[in-house]
């Protein structure tokens, strides 16, 4: 079985006057239905790695395949299309469009993909939000929701087109512990109940410990820690 995400010596260097290496020679493979933590101190390159995996950024060197397809030769348009159907993003900040209600925000990726009829999209957005415990807040705008609620709307939006891969960048980073717990449970649920692969960058080691697998990044490189036998180098 081919892995969902596969990288080979993935490298990202910012071409500044003094080149900054964000990610260096990362080779890893993530399969389906995995709950993966990317850990590391801040500035270690975990977010950068996540952006590369999410096709938001282009690697300077190395190979990246998503769903068995090499992303190297893809055009900007193809990368966008892959992002739309294969990948869901959750950021530290909710990043919802402020003028639209929770339900409309969830509908946006579906409308861009255009696979469903409008009433179906509406229905699906409602279902997704309800399943994340937001049934009462469908028509509220982001500024009328709490931080945890917004983050769960963002999760629902990431799920809109039913992508196999969810990438979360410090999803609980700006939340209090109770909301964090809720969001974490939501993400865990995606793996256990919906069969998604969730890759989350976090510096919360307690949280990382509760996930299936940990990839520790230091200075842009995978740091092999003892006691993590399934980590591939």
């Amino acid at each position, binding site marked *: 079985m081919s892995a969902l995400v596969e990288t080979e010596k993935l490298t990202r260097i910012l071409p500044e006057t003094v080149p900054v290496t964000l990610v260096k020679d990362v080779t890893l493979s993530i399969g389906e239905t995995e709950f993966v933590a990317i850990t590391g101190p801040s500035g270690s390159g975990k*977010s*950068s790695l996540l*952006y590369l995996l*999410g096709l*938001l*950024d282009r690697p300077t060197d190395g190979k990246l395949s998503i769903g068995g397809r090499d992303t190297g030769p893809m055009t*900007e*348009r193809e990368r*966008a*299309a*892959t*992002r*739309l*159907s294969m*990948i869901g*993003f959750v*950021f*530290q*900040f909710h*990043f*919802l*469009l402020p*003028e*639209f209600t929770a339900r409309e925000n969830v509908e*946006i*990726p579906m*409308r*861009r*993909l255009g696979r469903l009829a409008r009433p179906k999209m509406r229905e699906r957005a409602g279902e997704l939000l309800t399943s994340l415990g937001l049934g009462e807040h469908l028509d509220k705008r982001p500024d009328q929701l709490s931080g945890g609620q917004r983050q769960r709307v963002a999760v629902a*939006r990431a799920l809109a*087109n039913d992508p196999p891969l969810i990438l979360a*960048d*410090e999803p609980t*980073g700006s939340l209090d512990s109770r909301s964090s717990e809720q969001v974490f449970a939501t993400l865990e649920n995606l793996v256990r109940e919906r069969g998604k692969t969730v890759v989350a960058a976090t510096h919360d080691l307690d949280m990382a410990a509760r996930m299936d697998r940990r990839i520790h990044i230091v200075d842009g490189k995978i740091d092999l820690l003892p006691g993590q036998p399934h980590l591939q180098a």
Partner: protein
Amino acid sequence: MPLILDIAVTHIVGRGRQTIVAVLGVAVGVGFSIAMAALMQGGQDDFIRQLVDTMPHVDITDEHRTARRQPAEDVFTTVAISGLRPRDDRRGIINPTAATARLESWVPGRFAESLKAQGVIRYSSREVGAAIIGIDPEREPAVSPIVGDFVKGSFAALTAGGNNVVIGETMAGRLGAGLGDTITAVSSEGLTRDFKIVGLFHTGTTARDEGEAYLLLKNAQILSARPNAINEIRIKLDDPNHAPDVARRAEAELGYKAVAWQEANESILEALVVRNVIMYTVVGAIMLVAGFGIYNIISTITHEKARDIAIMKSLGFPESDMRRMFLLEGMAIGAAGSAIGCAFGLSMIYALSLIRFEIAATGQEITRLPIAWSALHYVIASAFALGSAAVAGYLPARRAAHLNPVEIIRGAT
């Protein structure tokens, strides 16, 4: 509503006041452009109408443009003649009856023959140089611009009782003569005759009002010692635009110089083209300024919505979508501005059309502003506005589309 349009609308609605200012900027530009075009075009039409009205559409005179084909050339094939020039004795149009009969058969319009000679009009001790024009009072009204400008009398009065003359009011004033007085006309041949003033006209054109005297054709022929001669045929066409064709054909048939009004006024028509170029340059400049307003607001929106751009890109919107979205916003402002501007322009033109004013010099001509009502002006102004809106929207849109989402997302954390 398509998604991109949906989001675009929230962007421009979200910046209410700035959007209104940008829309009004375009609207004022479009409105003034339309009003200016209507005035310029109106003035031009009015000017050309007067030009066409006051002069014959085709003027055939007894001049030759080129030397006549010599009979010897027709008879002998070996004859070559060089150094010919058109003869310059102005004897008038040869065989006028045949010439007019020929024109009668095909010219789509009316015409009148006349004999024009230079002379002097004398009254008491004063003298005025004048063009002495012999006409046929029955045919003249069809081609003459003066018919409607008689202050006293008419062309018809010439026929009653022999030696009569019609002169301009200004000339009469300078001579100190009035209706019923008898003036003396002296021709360049040295012949002298007395005529009674039976009509006065005032056309508003000084050269005419003080320099033309109309007699019966017969009297003019006697005065200039050219019995049966005419030296000008003036044609008024049903459609003045056919003048060049008619002139060409008349010249080919009669062999005399026939000048269409367009040819006679070439330099004026050229000046009108220059005027139009100036007008559209100004319209372009106004639209450019309006374009800056649009550029400004779209630029502001792209800066303000940088986060939204990053979000949408991370969700899987390609760059082309981003470009289209902001271009759409620019075009929407341009379109709204055009629509309001058209209404504004229309009402401004209407208001201008109500203004009446007197020309102080004579105190008798009350005029309205000449205004052209043409849908084309609205189309052109709107097209200019949409064009500049497209450019003004596209530039920031392209920049926005190129934004790197990673930088923005990092910046937010």
